[in-house]
């Protein structure tokens, strides 16, 4: 009823190829963004700190990996390490140049991660598929070793951990122990929206089409005049940029300090799972995937005890963690078999059904 294509005529090519061709979609997006900002003032600090901030951070990392794996078809298992590079670079820049605003450094730290990512992406010209996955494992283990063994990265701090010094924006603390969840949420939300908008423009433009051409058949793409090396390295660099920014946000705006272990191989896998479940090659899917994988354990933690405690069975926290692993694993297999395009495809089907409702087609 409300969601109809009828009466919206496209008179220009630009209008026809817009990302959101329907007026209703644009209105819906505006409502979602406004709602997200309104949440900062309506939601309590638990919701913001424990659900919304990590959800946005993981969404950003998932977008990064989706650019590489979903759009360019290069499987990477080093996401966690690339996030770590961003976090450590941000820490070094932040402490070395305290005068410059930290928001600048969050964006700049992504470039360090991009450079490292492009370096480890070099073998991608000659190898692909699981060979490349093993090559990115080299990045994962090597970089994690660097985080442990190079004390310079944490300014020779005895604990070996990253901490968040106090940093402000317009006089309001956004990083450090004094920053409220509300301000941190607003900062993360704004960064994620800006970067998602840029990513959307990238993947819908010439560069994105080059990536997709490489994914669908690299030899054919090469014959059409797309340079594989530059395109693949660009995908690695952009992907690592997003992961690096996500890593910096993860440490400084969510945890408020972290050790190297945050960027371990399990982190890489969980972000890959977000991409697979959300939908390979879909930006909105990255948000869905992050929501499902991240919010699942929180929901399990609330639902399972509520279900079993009346019967006198207590559910321990580690059981929930194990169940999370099992459910995530089973979901991966389920989605690969039933809906290889993930939640994003279900969303699309849903929208299509809504458009033609009440008719079947």
């Amino acid at each position, binding site marked *: 009823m409300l969601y109809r294509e009828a009466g919206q005529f496209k008179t220009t090519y630009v209008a026809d190829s817009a990302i959101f061709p329907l007026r209703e979609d644009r209105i819906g997006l505006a409502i979602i963004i406004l709602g997200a900002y309104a949440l900062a003032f309506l939601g309590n600090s638990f919701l913001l700190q424990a659900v919304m901030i990590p959800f946005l951070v993981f969404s950003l990392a998932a977008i990064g990996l989706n650019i590489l794996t979903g759009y360019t078809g290069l499987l990477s298992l080093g996401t966690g390490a690339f996030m770590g590079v961003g976090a450590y670079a941000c820490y070094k820049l932040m402490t070395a140049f305290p005068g410059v605003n930290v928001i600048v450094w969050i964006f700049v730290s992504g470039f360090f991660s991009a450079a490292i990512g492009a370096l480890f992406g070099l073998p991608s010209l000659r190898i692909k598929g699981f060979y490349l996955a093993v090559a990115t494992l080299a990045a994962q*283990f090597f970089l994690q070793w660097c985080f442990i063994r190079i004390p310079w990265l944490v300014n020779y701090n005895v604990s070996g951990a990253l901490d968040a010094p106090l940093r402000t924006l317009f006089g309001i603390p956004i990083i450090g122990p004094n920053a409220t969840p509300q301000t941190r949420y607003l900062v993360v939300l704004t960064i994620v929206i800006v970067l998602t908008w840029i990513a959307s423009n990238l993947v819908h433009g010439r560069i994105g089409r080059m990536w997709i051409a490489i994914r669908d058949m690299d030899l*054919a793409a090469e014959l059409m005049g797309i340079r594989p090396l530059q395109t693949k390295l660009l995908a690695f660099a952009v992907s690592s940029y997003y992961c690096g920014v996500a890593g910096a946000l993860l440490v400084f705006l969510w945890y408020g300090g972290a050790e190297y272990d945050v960027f371990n191989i399990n982190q890489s896998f969980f972000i890959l799972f977000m991409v697979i479940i959300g939908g390979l090659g879909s930006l909105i899917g990255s948000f869905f995937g992050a929501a499902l994988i991240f919010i699942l354990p929180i929901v399990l933690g609330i639902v399972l005890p509520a279900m079993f405690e009346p019967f006198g069975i207590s559910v321990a926290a580690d059981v929930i963690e194990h169940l999370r692993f099992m459910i995530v694993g089973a979901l991966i297999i389920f989605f690969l078999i039933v809906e290889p395009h993930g939640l994003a495809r279900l969303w699309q089907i849903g929208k299509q059904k809504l458009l033609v409702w009440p008719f079947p087609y």
Partner: protein
Amino acid sequence: MIDMLFKVFIEPFLFMVEAPDLLIQTLWEGLVSGVLYALIALGFVLIFKASGVFNFAQGIMVVFAALILVGLYEKGVPAFLALILAALAMLVLAMVVERVVLRPLVNQPDIILFMATFGLTYFLIGFGELIFGGSPREMITDQLFLPQGTTEIDAFGGSIRFQHLDIAAAIIASIMIGLLAVFFSKTRIGRALRAVADSHKAALSVGISLNQIWVIVWFAAGIVALVAGIMWGARSGVSFSLQIIALKALPVLILGGFTSIPGAIIGGLIIGIGEKIGEFYWGPLVGGGVETWLAYVIALLFLLYRPQGLFGEKIIERI
């Protein structure tokens, strides 16, 4: 600068010549872990050859098999019965995987199947921890009549220690590898496996049951995982961190090529020895702990030069 170059390129070699006993000791340790890497890698190769699936879950299968064995023994089951039951559990796992994961995904791109094995890995991690708990356990070495203790041989101006367990591990792994090689080349099932590896369609058309072959192959890989689990478990305890060791089989495969059994063995030895030598002689220069990534970097550099591995078939692509 010169000093640095000296430390990297000359000093380690001088040290090798000065103390040959330490060199032999390091080589031996590298050899043993190399054989064990090869054993894990063999599980990957088996499945890859027959079903084209790169089974990432092989590592967790090693842990899972060892955990079932130890867990059953702790419940009071005699050791050898536990061993048989663990093997049966691997058979059940193979059948379930074939039915639930492989059959619906037949004819999908390789990378989809690869990612499905990630799902399998996480499922098994959660399942294993749920049943057996996450705490590390001791492998039942005595009950399985695995030898313990060490022999010291005085030679090369020092004494070299050989753990009996390591010797047994190397021998058992070699026997396993030999048996599998015979199984692959001489038996009827082995020929069927090779036929499936060559072409699924052609194999089906001459009456080979794909489903049956997959169960057999996953079962064989499960048995290899059980043996590898016993051996690694005896060396470093049974825990989920074994899975990280099992990931080392990936660079081994890259070196050896995905389809070659001799490649897996030689790749395993190169990685095992290279890693130990690198850690012992060059590790201190950068603060130690290089073992965690050296294998991957060796494989990475190797990939740039020869993407199909030492014994792999040349990759030919067609449009």
